[in-house]
């Protein structure tokens, strides 16, 4: 399958042809450039010779880019023989990386999407351990293929951790407008996988209840979308957005919680004493707790609670 090592001109490599590329492009390759400068190229890229005398890359995209950055004109490569086919080049590209380190989710998705041109899901499952260095179930392969068909920037968001596979799987079932709407949201926030799922569910359920498309939910409800415009920090923006979405999904619950929190704040208990309402107000049990370091603090807290007995708002909270 492979000829021996040979030296070629970098300009003879068609680096725009990325048919075997399975890793997203690294934004910063300065470390790699520096390393090559200091120690030379440790692993030669693998290329496929084409009929026109040019080459296309099977592996080593970043290395070639780093060499270009170092103004190198030639590179030692491993070249395949001339009659190797596309399928085997792709298999080689995937397996080389998978046996070097576990593939990232995005690499797995890209690999499966590309291989699906040659293999059905059943065959892919059969060869998965030999190619991906792990056994993949058919259902998982289906999911990854579906996720791979999501429009951009889905893969980029998965790569940056802004979209979990589970959330992506939920999006796959939606129409294109809704998918784009959610991808836009996730490109503007940074939420844990469970919060992403909560957001998707709450937005979809509110839209269904209101009979509007998710993408016009905010306009229909006359709400300012906290993701529009310049909002500060990503974490604050995420928090505001999550709160807004929850308020639309559970309006009465949200208002009740807020009203009770306001009332609790107006009782002005000291910071050491916590008055916690029952979860979702289904039971009537409020919990009151305080922490003490010594007996004196204990006495103080008891005194605060005794004073609070006269507080009408507290009575209202507990007896409502």
């Amino acid at each position, binding site marked *: 399958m492979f000829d021996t090592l040979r030296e070629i001109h970098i300009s003879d490599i068609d680096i725009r042809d990325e048919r075997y590329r399975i890793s997203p492009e690294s934004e910063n390759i300065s470390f790699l450039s520096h390393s090559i400068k200091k120690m030379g190229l440790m692993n030669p890229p693998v290329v496929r010779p084409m009929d026109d005398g040019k080459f296309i890359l099977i592996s080593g995209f970043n290395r070639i880019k780093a060499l270009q950055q170092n103004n190198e004109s030639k590179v030692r490569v491993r070249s395949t023989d001339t009659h190797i086919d596309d399928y085997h080049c792709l298999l080689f590209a995937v397996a080389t990386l998978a046996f070097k380190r576990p593939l990232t989710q995005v690499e797995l998705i890209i690999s499966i999407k590309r291989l699906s041109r040659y293999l059905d899901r059943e065959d892919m499952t059969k060869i998965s351990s030999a190619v991906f260095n792990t056994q993949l179930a058919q259902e998982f392969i289906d999911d990854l293929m579906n996720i791979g068909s999501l429009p951009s920037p889905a893969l980029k968001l998965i790569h940056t951790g802004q979209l979990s596979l589970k959330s992506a799987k939920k999006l796959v079932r939606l129409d294109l407008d809704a998918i784009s709407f959610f991808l836009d949201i996730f490109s503007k926030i940074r939420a844990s996988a469970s919060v992403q799922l909560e957001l998707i569910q709450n937005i979809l*359920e*509110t839209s*269904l*209840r209101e009979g509007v498309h998710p993408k016009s939910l905010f306009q229909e409800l006359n709400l300012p979308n906290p993701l529009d415009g310049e909002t500060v920090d990503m974490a604050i923006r995420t928090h505001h957005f999550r709160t807004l979405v929850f308020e639309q*999904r*559970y*309006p*009465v*619950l949200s208002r*009740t919680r807020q009203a009770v929190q306001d009332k609790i704040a107006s009782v002005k208990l000291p910071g050491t004493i916590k008055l916690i309402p029952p979860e*979702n*107000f*289904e*039971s*009537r049990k409020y919990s009151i707790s305080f922490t003490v370091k010594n007996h004196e603090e204990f006495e103080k807290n008891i005194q605060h609670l005794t004073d609070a007995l006269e507080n009408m708002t507290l009575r209202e909270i507990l007896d409502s």
Partner: protein
Amino acid sequence: MKIETLFMDNLLPLDDETEYLISRIHLKPQKIHDSGEVYDFINQADDPVSLAKKTLYITQNKGAVIRNCPGTCHYTCCDYTILHTGTFCTMDCAYCILQAYFHPPVLQYFAGLDQIGQELQAVFRQNKIFRIGTGEYTDSLIWEKVSLMPEFLVKTFAGQKNSVLELKTKTVNIESLISLDHNEKTIMAWSLNTPEIIRSQEKGTASLTARLEAAKQAESKGYRLAFHFDPIVIYPGCEDQYKKVIQKIFEYVRPETIVWISLGTFRFMPGLKAVIEKRFPESTLCYGEFIQGLDNKMRYFKPLRIHIYKEMIAGLKAYAPDVFLYFCMEDEEVWEKCLGFFPGKERELGRLLDQCAAGRCNLNRALI
């Protein structure tokens, strides 16, 4: 929904009851040795629930024929007794818990009037009031047109004085029962909802008007009546809609013939949501403000429940101040805020319902 496939236990005798049933269903039963064959048949479908609604399995009840209703902790239960005559239903309500309760659901008809008769006689001999219903795991009257069971039950209950039979339904299948001598021991009960909910969520059921017309007809023959607002669904404008339903009840029937009216807002096991979303993609039932209740079922946020209950109770009290109203599975706070009392003592609600049954159905009051 029309039955398309009929299975029958091989060992089940062909007697008057089964012959009558088979002759009216107009299908030749496939005799089976093992119930697994029915389960396999249903499970192979893409939508086992829908297939199960068209597949009848005539069998014998191998478990307890008479059992206590499984209430849930934290919420007050009414001490009902279930007469287990079958499972599942031919109608197709989006919210039906039976879709998720059985895996897979099987439409079973439990043949064996003798067995049921004997078990009931044992109940009738006890010194205790019983409120017995067949509508817990099925609709009480789905088989009325093809089965001898409803008639048998009404007649059997007519001959005793310590139990009432409640036939709870969304059908208008009362033809075979209407002229029976029921001796006031059968309560014909209808689950009611707003026309909008009936139209959108209760596929295959009778309309509100048809149910009330049937109730009126039953009343005219001396039957005692009950109504169940369950599940009450909260949606914009529902207060007025439910009040209109209440008004309509009393355009058809008199308060004096109503033994009780229950109210219960929609609640569901979390697993039901996925079933509803899959089988009824148009339904927005599950997108109300549901929180997880203390029994782990999803329930409307309590202030919403209290609000709709108060509105409905005010409407009901205006027309029927003396009719006993109760909640199905609610807690002390809801009872107190909406009805002004809480049957907190053990079996208290059951005792109150026994009193209603005794008063309106002429049971032996000494047993309360």
